[in-house]
């Protein structure tokens, strides 16, 4: 199915969860609690259709066709 990720079209498998998407994009393995499996900080957050999805909910949140997802992280700034 097709979603929008950070403003551009993005294809994910049907039934993919937020965890699947974050793992795919960041290349990190995630535990079901939304933390990185390697124990390091992940440092990203997800908004789906303008609602923040807490990382504890990533695993149980299924993406739907047409979802608008923002995946953000810390960058240099004031």
């Amino acid at each position, binding site marked *: 199915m097709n979603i929008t990720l950070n403003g551009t079209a993005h294809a994910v498998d049907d039934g993919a969860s937020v965890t699947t998407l974050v793992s795919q994009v*960041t290349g990190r393995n995630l535990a079901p609690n939304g933390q990185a499996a390697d124990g*390091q*900080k992940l*440092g990203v*957050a997800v908004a789906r259709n303008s609602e923040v999805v807490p990382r504890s909910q990533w695993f149980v949140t299924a993406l739907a066709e047409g979802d608008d997802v923002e995946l*953000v*992280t*810390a960058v240099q*700034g*004031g």
Partner: protein
Amino acid sequence: MAGTTVAGAAGTAQQAADPFIVDGVALGSRLITGTGGAPSLDGLGAALIASGTELTTVAMRRYSPAETGSLFQLLVDHNIRVLPNTAGCFTARDAVMTAELAREALETDWVKLEVIADEHTLLPDAVELVDATEQLVNRGFKVFAYTNDDPVLALRLENLGATAVMPLGSPIGTGLGILNPHNIELIVSRASVPVVLDAGIGTASDAALAMELGCDAVLLATAVTRAQNPAMMGEAFKHAVIAGRLARAAGRIPRREHALASSAMEGRAEFL
């Protein structure tokens, strides 16, 4: 001190004796740095270490797989606390959303609230700032409010529950220093939360002045990251903040109209 934790190990003995306490956390340095404008992560890391900072701002932006190295990881590695900002937000709605994302991503409820009016001045939009402060405090955030050098607005933000108020010295990135020292002194004299001079700092003497005016800390980014030698400038600011703080505590002499000799006139030799 009860209920406080000591953050970071970078503080010198001088700094440790006089911690900057905010939201119950004791920081060893009164210099808060931003990370914007640095050409490379390596150079930024060196400048941050030289500055002795224990709290550093970051912005929240779209994740890009192409980015090499993680700023967040750099800060974690150096034991520097992270203060996410809402830079680039023009409305309370955007600022609240950005703060929520930052809290999720970085696992901190501290936020530097920045709601600007337009890109030309980058000055805070007072109406949106007040609205966003109220919303964020209600959502459990610790709000470090970037504000105009307006004593009335600063007090309003404090009354709404801001954890710290951060008046600007002059517009962001200008390096014009503190344009209205009188207002900064007024803000300090009425505040019961920490006052952090934020924005407009150009060089070390500006930071020293902020501390002499009674500010609890200084926040700056461009002055270090865009200096010709960022690490050296970082170190300069480290000393400036300490010097200004000491001068404030020591009590300066009053200004006077006419000269006052420091050598006694009595007992001079006489030449015939």
